């Protein structure tokens, strides 16, 4: 059986040079749980930590004192060794509003904030959440209040969205089509658009037909108000992106021991390498293992059948069947994990077992932290 190098979680959390840990992965694999558990463990190790969560389950949020979405770090625990944990929940709309307020004079800011197009952009555009998570991370990073920031990433289906979406939003706001819609005459006058001249009237025409004059007008107002601050907006995003490549940053890819999740993890690992972003390792979460792993599934099934034939050992037979079932799941998971390892033999791995129930309090997080580190 192949084995991957073990991920030294305590080494990572305890390293004072480590400033940012980003937990990525596809939806539902345990990013939020892992981020919170890492934060708690780092605090136990004496670090001054803030965890930026995006979508904690209700009870988990409550257990960390996060009753509302207010963008404010709340104290969770403090330790005698000086370590402490704060947690906050990302409010993407408010984060966006704050950027506007920081970059535009009050009049213009008000104009933007009340614009219907801005309102839908800031609360529902695909990618805004990822962008704002990065923005918030940048703010926390610059504030110097924390020696470690653990970031949970938004619940998109694909892990890559976290890296791609901000760029997409930036391109969108800076895009030529947007300009084309807003000021077709001006755009048409520029050389680059000469060729498209025929198309330009058509663009506004169709846009008008499909989305209506009012929406088009809202977009125009938004763009002209936003134009002045676009440079600052872009610059911020670039700074944060650079932060992700800095030596004090580490990515942890979280995956369930399932084909889809591990495939996503693979893509993400490759992408990080391309972006020269530092990967710390893979966390395989919710792994099913058996305390009686020496007894194989096949032997267990055979033994149960044998007992059925003999009669009189119903309980033992049922227990053996249950075990065989568990071993079947464990074997399948193992196989999925091995195919990841063959493709990425050097990526350190930590495994966390599937707990019988949800993880919704500090004790649960502490236990996950222990399993991560062992």
């Amino acid at each position: 059986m192949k084995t991957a190098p073990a991920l030294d979680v305590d080494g990572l959390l305890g390293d004072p040079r480590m400033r940012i840990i980003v937990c990525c992965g596809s939806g539902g694999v345990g990013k939020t749980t892992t981020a919170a558990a890492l934060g708690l463990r780092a605090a136990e190790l004496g670090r001054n930590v803030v965890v930026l969560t995006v979508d904690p389950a209700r009870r988990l949020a409550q257990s960390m004192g996060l009753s509302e979405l207010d963008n404010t770090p709340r104290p969770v625990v403090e330790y005698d060794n000086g370590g402490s944990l704060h947690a906050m929940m990302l409010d993407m709309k408010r984060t966006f509003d704050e950027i506007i307020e920081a970059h535009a004079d009050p009049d213009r800011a008000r104009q933007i904030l009340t614009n219907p197009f801005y309102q839908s952009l800031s609360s529902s555009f695909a990618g805004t959440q990822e962008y704002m998570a990065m923005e918030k991370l940048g703010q926390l990073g610059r504030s110097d209040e924390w020696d470690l920031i653990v970031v949970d990433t938004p619940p998109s289906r694909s892990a890559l969205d976290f890296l791609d979406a901000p760029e997409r939003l930036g391109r969108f706001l800076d895009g030529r089509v947007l300009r084309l819609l807003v000021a077709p005459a001006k755009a048409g006058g520029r050389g680059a658009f000469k060729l498209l001249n025929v198309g330009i009237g058509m663009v506004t025409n169709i846009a008008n037909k499909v989305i209506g004059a009012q929406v088009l007008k809202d977009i125009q107002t938004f763009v002209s108000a936003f134009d002045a601050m676009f440079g600052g907006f872009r610059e911020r995003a670039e700074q944060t992106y650079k932060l992700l490549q800095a030596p004090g940053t580490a990515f942890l890819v979280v995956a369930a021991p399932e084909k889809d999740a591990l495939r996503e993890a693979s893509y993400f690992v490759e992408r990080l390498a391309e972006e020269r972003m530092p990967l710390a390792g893979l966390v395989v979460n919710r792994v099913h293992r058996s305390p009686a792993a020496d007894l194989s599934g096949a032997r267990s099934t055979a033994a149960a059948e044998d007992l059925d034939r003999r009669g009189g050992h119903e309980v033992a037979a049922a227990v053996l069947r249950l075990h065989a079932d568990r071993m079947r799941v464990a074997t399948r998971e193992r196989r999925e994990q091995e195919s990841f390892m063959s493709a990425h033999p050097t990526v350190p791995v930590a495994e966390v077992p599937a707990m019988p129930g949800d993880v919704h309090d500090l004790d649960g997080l502490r236990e996950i932290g222990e399993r991560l580190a062992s």
Partner: protein
Amino acid sequence: MSARDTDWDGVRLHVVTGKGGTGKTTVAAALALALASGGKKVLLVEVEGRQGIAQLFDRPPLPYEEKKIAVAPGGGDVHALAIDPEEAMLEYLEMFYGLRRAGKALTKMGVIDFITTIAPGLRDVLLTGKTTESVRRKDPSGRRVYDAVVLDAPPTGRVVRFLNVTTEVADLARVGPIRTHADMVRGVVASPETAVHFVTLLEEMPVQETLDGIADLRAEGLPPGGVFINMVRPEILPEETLEAAGEDRLDLDELIVGLKAAGLTDDAEETARALAAEVAEHAHRTRLERRERQTLAKADRPRYELPLLADGVDLAGLYELADTIKAQGAA
């Protein structure tokens, strides 16, 4: 035509939602197979651009075209369609404005993608519009082309908004084709011809989301359907054993005797202890799962249970799930 009543007779649009990863795509596909069985024609639709259906049926990516992808037990066909908002937009421009060529040119410039991205709700109205069009479509003899349409929908958190198109596009268009389109969608999704089903696991978060989702649907006058409890583990242990294990009083000696009787004599004691630990954990999990089951009962919707397929979902597994769905009266 089968004469047997199902829980959803009269429903033509089955919308399948649920928390991400609970098995929406899998359940939608199994439901489509179950609905098609016995000679029906069913369309399975996806809208998230994931090509999840193609992957599940082991096919190359689906084009924007209704294609037969499976034959149901006892005859009957499942067709599939991956709706792409850009393509749906082009179709729409052609239908209402006769703008096929211009639409294509604009696609190349990225304008169509842009418009479907920025206009709030437009994307959704295009996706649901195409879906409801397939629900209502009739052949020349006036019969519906599909006996049922199954929509692999966005997850619970987004589904109400997705279906609630009239409100969503209110800002976009008070009159005109978009509005007509939205009203047509509303006419179908808010009618007894539609049921919005939830897929959940016996875990806290998905169960909570299911209850919230059902309440949200009701508040918007949309019809909640059934609850599909997915990945249910078989209950192998006799009730007394489960209880005993839960209270840490499983009879170790009895287990050891059993193991030895089955020839597992090496380290029988140690093995028995390890197995007992495994059983205790199982008992704990079972207790929590039962609690979630009770919580789900509060929603007062029909419930169906689908087994966890230990080897993962392949085609055979999909048919197995379809059988289970039929046997429980959901199709």
